[in-house]
Every structure is written in structure tokens, then in C-alpha cells.
């Protein structure tokens, strides 16, 4: 796989798949047609995404947040689909703001998976659906595996000014499942390895681009 390093502040993608290992601190992505983007970095402060009409964007993030404050803004025009998958391990103190501005006939699927590695994470997800926008599906799903429940704060914010909207927010925070751990240990896997398999699997579970490549 070729991972690219993006140095310019704007990137235009049309009908393509790219794997990105690094981006500038402030960065804008313009997407048209069917686009898949995998970002293996969490080092940016503001990422803006613009979707053209009738386009579909699958954007996935995998990496470690460490003392990171990031904001991601998604602006989607009419008749678009956004599959947004963000999978991170967090250390130290972090903040993630995801802001979506959704137009008519849009489907936004926002999935976030976070695994604590001794640190804290504040997540704010703001979905804004403007007046007169119709046929919108907005789903926000945040799941975290933590050692300590206080290490994560989830702050959903749905600003819905329209009636023809299905908007869903769900969040679940838990520790590594006892049953899963027991199952892996019963196969002779050490506790340490079992925990890391479960955490990795939990993160990778929402990522599709690696799957698509197979």
C-alpha cells in the first residue's frame, strides 16, 4: 500500500481511493464522486471536508491521539453520503470536535471508536440540519473502551431545524468484555495479548477500507 504525505493545504479528490499518512495542521478536502480516504494520522487541528452534490465519501481515521485538539467540519451538499469512521487510542488530554452541516437528501453516518490508554478524551459531535432541508438521515454512534469511566466525556449536540429528519445519537462506554476475554484466554492466549486483540478489533471493526482492499 502506498501512503501519501499531503503537504498542500487543499486536496481535491474525484473518484479515487487514497491512503494518507500525514497532513498539514489545517487542511481542506474537496470530494466529488465516490471517494475513499484512509488517514493514518490524528495530527491536525482543523480538517474541513466539502462534499459535492451526488457524491459519496468514505473517510476513515486510525491512530493515536496524544495531547491533541482536533476539529473536523463536514459540509455536505444535496444528495450525498458520508461514512465517517474515526478509530483512535487516546493518551494524555484530548479533544475532538466533529461538526456536520447536512443538506437535503443526505445520509451521514458518523462512527467513532475510542480506546483509552491512560488519558482523557472530550468528544463533541454537532450535527446541524438547517431549515427546509428534507429527507435527511443522520446517525452518530460513539463507543469507547475505557479503564475509567471518567476518562471520556461525550457531548452530542443535534441542532435540528427541520422536520423531515431522522437523527440518531447513541453512545456506549464500557470496559473490555469479560466474555470476550474469557473466550480468548480459553484458547490459550495470554491476558495481555487477549486484551490487545479485543481493543484492536474494536477499533478496526468500523474500518472498511482495509476490507475493501482484500
Amino acid at each position, binding site marked *: 500500500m502506498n501512503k501519501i504525505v499531503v503537504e498542500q493545504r487543499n486536496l481535491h479528490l474525484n473518484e479515487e481511493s487514497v491512503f494518507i499518512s500525514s497532513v498539514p495542521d489545517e487542511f481542506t478536502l474537496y470530494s466529488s464522486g465516490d471517494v475513499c480516504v484512509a488517514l493514518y494520522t490524528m495530527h491536525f487541528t482543523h480538517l474541513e471536508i466539502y462534499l459535492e452534490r451526488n457524491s459519496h465519501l468514505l473517510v476513515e481515521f486510525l491512530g493515536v491521539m496524544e495531547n491533541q485538539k482536533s476539529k473536523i467540519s463536514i459540509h455536505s451538499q444535496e444528495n450525498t453520503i458520508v461514512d465517517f469512521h474515526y478509530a483512535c487510542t487516546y493518551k494524555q488530554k484530548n479533544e475532538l470536535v466533529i461538526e456536520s452541516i447536512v443538506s437535503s437528501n443526505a445520509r451521514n453516518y458518523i462512527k467513532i471508536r475510542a480506546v483509552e490508554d491512560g488519558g482523557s478524551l472530550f468528544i463533541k459531535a454537532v450535527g446541524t440540519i438547517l431549515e427546509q432541508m428534507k429527507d435527511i438521515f443522520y446517525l452518530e454512534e460513539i463507543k469507547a473502551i475505557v479503564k475509567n469511566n471518567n476518562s471520556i466525556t461525550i457531548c452530542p449536540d443535534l441542532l435540528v431545524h427541520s422536520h423531515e429528519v431522522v437523527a440518531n445519537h447513541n453512545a456506549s462506554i464500557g470496559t473490555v468484555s*469479560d*466474555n*470476550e476475554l*474469557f*473466550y*480468548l*484466554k*480459553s*484458547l*490459550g*492466549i*495470554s*491476558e495481555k*495479548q487477549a486484551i490487545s*486483540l*479485543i481493543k*484492536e*478489533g*474494536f*477499533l*478496526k*471493526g468500523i474500518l472498511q477500507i482495509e476490507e475493501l482492499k*482484500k
Partner: protein
Amino acid sequence: MLKVKNLSVSVQDKVILEKFNLEINAGEIHVLMGANGAGKSTITKVLMRDSHYKVEGDIFLNGKSLLAMSTTEVAQAGVFLVAQNPVEIAGVSNAEVLRTALNDRGKNTMNVLEFNRKLTDLCKRLEISSSFIHRDINLNMSGGEKKKNELLHMWMLEPQFIILDEIDSGLDVDALQVVASSILEYYEKYKPSILIITHQKKLLELLKPQFVHILKDKKIVQSGDYALAEKVFLEGFSGASVMNARVENE
């Protein structure tokens, strides 16, 4: 191989097993029968050192105290459980788990190609698609596929003591044949000890256990040969043979 002596098991102050005794030697096939809720699955989990249960008494595995071992150690000592309800784990594939399990045992002598070839061959013999190799553990698999998937693990890990907790439940006629033949083939090749738990006659007819035990009132109230299983299928657990046995035991 396995000796359970005077075992008491409780969970949240509820006693599930009391004065439970069982001995299984190398190469023997045993079946444990008992009504729903009798405690059959409980003993399988206790043997795997599930930490939910409070346990008193002794269990010896090859002369060593099993209760002093961790779940990982019990598995590495050659015990393998096909659970009644195999757990699903998203994002963790069969291949990954098996490679890790073999590595952690220091038994991963195969290179990637050999490893894949072995898995592919096993899938064929178990009549499941070779795509199972890279599927998430039991995720979105049908009931029958899960059981076959567990046998895939068994063949890869080569255990010497196998516990099958209702491996026949939810299997269609053909799948039951495939599963039973696979177990028999494994038995012929490795001569492991097997502890079967089932409510159905068919699997026992195919696997022909030499020893049958009835679990009732928290302990084994009667043991015998295959004829005892047939009696149970005829009379049930409150039938005359089992009732009398209980009186004898007290």
C-alpha cells in the same frame, strides 16, 4: 487425566454444585447428562477457570492442581472447550486468534503459507467456506457455522482434553454428521479425552461414549455405561433408574 474431587461451586451465594466428583482418564469419552439448569455448563466453565464462580474442593489435571492455574494455563495444558454459546468478537479474525494462540504456546512452527493451507484444508473438511479463515470470531455466523468454527480451532490447537457443551444443538442433520465425523476423526488421530454434554441421542449414537454420568441435585448421582444413557432417553431424569440411584447414593 482429570480428577474432580468434592467440588462445590457457587455464584452470587447460589450453590450450583456440591460434592461433585468426576474422573476422566486419557482417551476416554464421557457424557454428562442432566436437566436444564442442573449445572452442566457451569462445570465446563469452572474447568476453564471462569472467575465468576466461587469454587471449593480439588481438581487435578495430569496430577497438577487445576484450581491453581489460570484460564490461559489450563488451555495451554491442552484443555479445549466448545462453549454452549460461542462468543462473537467483532474485528478479531479466526486467523489472527489462531496465530496468537499458537504463538503464545510457543507452538507456531508453521509459516504463513503452511498455516493458510492447513486452515483451508480444514474448512473444506468441515464443509465451510475458506472465507471463514478471515472472518471475525463467530460474528454473524449461523448457529451451526459457529460450532464448525469451534472445531476449526480444535484442529489447529490440538488439545488433549475436549469439552463439548451441546455442540449438537442447532445443527441440521447433515451438519451433525460432519461435526460428529470430524470429532471421531480427531479422536482416532490424537486419542484425547472427551467430555460431552448433550440432550440428544443422535450425537451419542455417533460418538459412542464409554461412560455416562447423571447430574442431579448438584452432584453426579449415577454413573454407568452407554445403557444408562438409553435409560435416560426412555424414562427421563425423574425416571425409576435415576430416582433409585439417588437413594443409593445418600
